């Protein structure tokens, strides 16, 4: 497959003055990516999402991280948090807030950590994803330079969320960025991490992020990924979690924006009593394409997983869900549960769903279920009979459908933001504000 010339050049031009280990990793990433190229529909994992289009797209690179205040105010979450802000992949120190860092947490922009060649970076970068997690993650390895390295100290329960905000500008020429987020949760720690992807109207950049999360025994992490990029943005995310004994990982994968979106989320349950909760919500409109791939590897006995993904598709949007539960030989007494429910609001929308079980141990309980359908006409009738007009009834029921995932969000500001975003995607006559006032919620 032919790759764009500018991309090829960039792949082979490793930035000068970098530590040797990084140059080596970049080379490995570049050569892997060159071998496989952008995935096409012939790759089983990309059957429903054709990425070969990237071969024809040209992306530049941002040279500054300036952002006007109005844009920033409109896009950020108003949340009391340890905040790092990135604009088109570049770190913006002014907008970030690292002064009031709570005890036991260390957050460093990746560029700074690389400059000072912190040993933690060389240990963690690519430790979980390797080189061959996917073509996009290899591309990230080859080209990354910014991101965050987050360390939660031993026995630290951090109340303030760690907030990483990635803003995509509406540039004259689209750019690509490859943020790398490295998270290390030490023993018995507890924290909340919010990855927030937002963009100016009309932004058409490519964000290709890789997140690697290492969880030491008995650590807990709530992970929120709120993706509300512009409807012309390309967004690819690869998340790999390594869970040790007694860990608890909760993922909230909330996808509301983007033109073409792909999430690959892999959790390895590597020791007993590791638990993972995967919650997902996606709402596609117009020609949005949202693809969620998740994989839970039960590599040890007595590990538990629970997954619930809900999709709403309107217009000509297309949604993809592929969830795999894998149980290794002799990983006995495992519980694995998987659910995917989809609501199609338009006849031109499409959902392709594939919940998979791959099981090599007998003393397990696994199940999955998926449904695809529409709003219950009887429920709509029941509401209308009570004086609620049809649009409002449809809106309420759609919101209720999404609520199963939204109600698991334990941050008021986030819940509000998501609820409003979902309501905002509903037909015009559905007015959440008036509803909120009416019931004085």
């Amino acid at each position: 497959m032919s790759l764009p010339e500018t991309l090829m050049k960039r792949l082979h031009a490793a930035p000068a003055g970098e530590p040797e280990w990084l140059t080596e990793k970049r080379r490995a990433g570049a050569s892997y990516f060159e071998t496989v190229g952008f995935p096409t529909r012939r790759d089983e994992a990309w059957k429903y999402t054709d990425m070969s289009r990237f071969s024809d797209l040209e992306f530049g690179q941002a040279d500054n991280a300036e952002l006007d205040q109005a844009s920033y105010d409109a896009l950020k979450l108003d949340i009391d948090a340890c905040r790092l802000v990135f604009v088109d992949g570049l770190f913006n120190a002014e907008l970030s807030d690292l002064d009031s860092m709570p005890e036991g947490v260390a957050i460093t922009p990746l560029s700074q950590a690389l400059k000072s060649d912190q040993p933690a970076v060389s240990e963690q970068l690519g430790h979980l994803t390797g080189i061959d997690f996917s073509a996009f993650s290899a591309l990230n390895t080859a080209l990354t330079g910014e991101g965050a390295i987050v360390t939660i100290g031993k026995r630290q329960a951090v109340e303030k969320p760690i907030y990483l905000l990635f803003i995509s500008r509406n540039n004259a020429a689209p750019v690509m960025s490859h943020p790398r987020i490295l998270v290390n949760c030490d023993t018995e720690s507890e924290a909340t991490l919010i990855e927030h992807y937002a963009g100016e109207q009309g932004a058409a950049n490519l964000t290709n992020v890789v997140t690697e999360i290492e969880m030491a025994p008995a650590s807990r992490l709530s992970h929120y990924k709120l993706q509300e990029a512009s409807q012309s943005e390309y967004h690819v995310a690869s998340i790999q979690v390594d869970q040790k004994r007694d860990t608890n990982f909760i993922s909230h994968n909330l996808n509301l924006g983007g033109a073409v979106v792909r999430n690959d989320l892999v959790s390895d349950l590597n020791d007993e009593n590791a638990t993972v909760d995967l919650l997902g919500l996606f709402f596609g409109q117009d020609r949005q394409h949202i693809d969620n791939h998740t994989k839970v590897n039960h590599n040890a006995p007595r590990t538990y997983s629970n997954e619930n993904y809900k999709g709403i598709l309107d217009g000509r949007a297309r949604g993809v869900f592929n969830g795999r539960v894998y149980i290794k030989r002799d990983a006995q007494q495992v519980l694995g549960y998987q659910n995917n429910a989809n609501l199609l609001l338009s006849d031109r929308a499409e959902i392709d769903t594939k919940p998979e079980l791959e099981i090599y141990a007998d003393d397990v309980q696994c199940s999955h279920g998926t449904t695809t359908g529409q709003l219950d006409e009887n429920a709509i009738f029941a509401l209308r009979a009570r004086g609620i007009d049809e649009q409002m009834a449809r809106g309420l029921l759609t919101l209720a459908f999404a609520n199963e995932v939204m109600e698991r969000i334990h941050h008021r500001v986030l819940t509000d933001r998501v609820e409003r975003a979902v309501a905002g995607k509903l037909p015009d006559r559905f007015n959440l504000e008036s509803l909120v006032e009416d019931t004085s919620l």
Partner: protein
Amino acid sequence: MATEAMEQLARREYKQGFVTDIESDTVPPGLDESVIAFISQKKGEPQWMLDWRLEAYHQWLKMTSPSWAHLDYPPIDYQAISYFSAPKKPEDRPQSLDEVDPKLLETYEKLGIPLHERAALAGVAVDAVFDSVSVTTTFREKLAEAGVIFCSISEAIREYPELVRQYLGTVVPQGDNYFAALNSAVFTDGSFVYIPEGVTCPMELSTYFRINAANTGQFERTLIVCDKRAQVSYLEGCTAPQRDENQLHAAVVELVALEDAYIKYSTVQNWYPGDEDGKGGIYNFVTKRGDCRGDRSRISWTQVETGSAITWKYPSCLLRGNESKGEFYSVAVTNGRQQADTGTKMIHIGKNTSSTIVSKGIAAGKSNQSYRGLVKVSPRATGSRNFTQCDSLLIGDKCGAHTFPYQEIGNSRSTIEHEATTSKIGDDQLFYCKSRGISEEDAVSMIVNGFCKDVFQELPMEFAVEAEALLSVTLEGSVG
């Protein structure tokens, strides 16, 4: 614990492994145009049929063997297989059972299927396929009275060329997939059924397939056409003798249901699965597809799969007619080192079409089993409905059970549901039975039978009995 009983079950012997010694008229191994011409000539086929075969052969040459299934087997040497084998003296075929080679009858006796008895008592017409050529066909007259055509495909090509030409390859085209292309090129026999308009077939039709000569692949081709408002229930059952060399089987079954027609196709497959180490055993690569061509037509697949070393089989329904219906009921049991990748495809094309999928998988020993299914609802198939349930039962900690259901839903006025579970026989279930004085073996048998009940009740009476017997035989080992 039931472990010991389970292990014994995993070691069960293949009870129907024996070889009948009949001299075969076999071509040397290998495949080229001359072999195809030989088969065609042997069958006394017209030129168009030979051309059709050659066309398939040329397509096959350009294809590669599929590798997407969850199966692991060494590459097949297609030049090491002999593509034709027929019992001697095909010219003077026996006219009645008395004339049938006694050895052949003996084979059926050993299988526990006394042909005449079965035919007479059960009222079933049997078109017995022994090594590629139909040896005997019973109840022809009775069927002829109803206007039903039931004969071997070779005979149909000679006697009813216009019917065969009209429908052959319209459901499974020559180049559909690797194995279908191979079958189209070299198929040697199979059944042809035509039920005329408005006729309900007076009896259940049944064919017994049997693989015999070593190293001979079997390539059956079955075509069933049900005209408007016609109905038929077709039974297919298979057993094969014990062999050390892998035998390739690549059958194609095509069903065509016109308006208001109903075809029920039931299979019990009990081919030799190979020995404890996975040596020998049948490779079963089957393409089965039904086309609900007319409005309100209905096709129902029921299968009980207990045999074969490798099973690659996805009986499917193309729901083209409005309000047409597709059904798939399956029990698959794998044991030893068997591997099965099986499931179904339901393609909803017409409006208000519905489909039901019930799949029960039981994996024991070191076997691996996958359910692979596709439910596709096209944008214009509004008002469509699908319900899928696939449950897997694991017996022992060396086996694997996998589920790969694909769903592609293209409109908002359809309802699709899918459920799957995987677990073992519950210790509490076993304890409950045992505390009431039921032995562990009986309890396992009872629970497994209950697990499969949803599918067994879809089988025609004779088959249901046979299937349950087969399961009992399977579980017999666990009693000791």
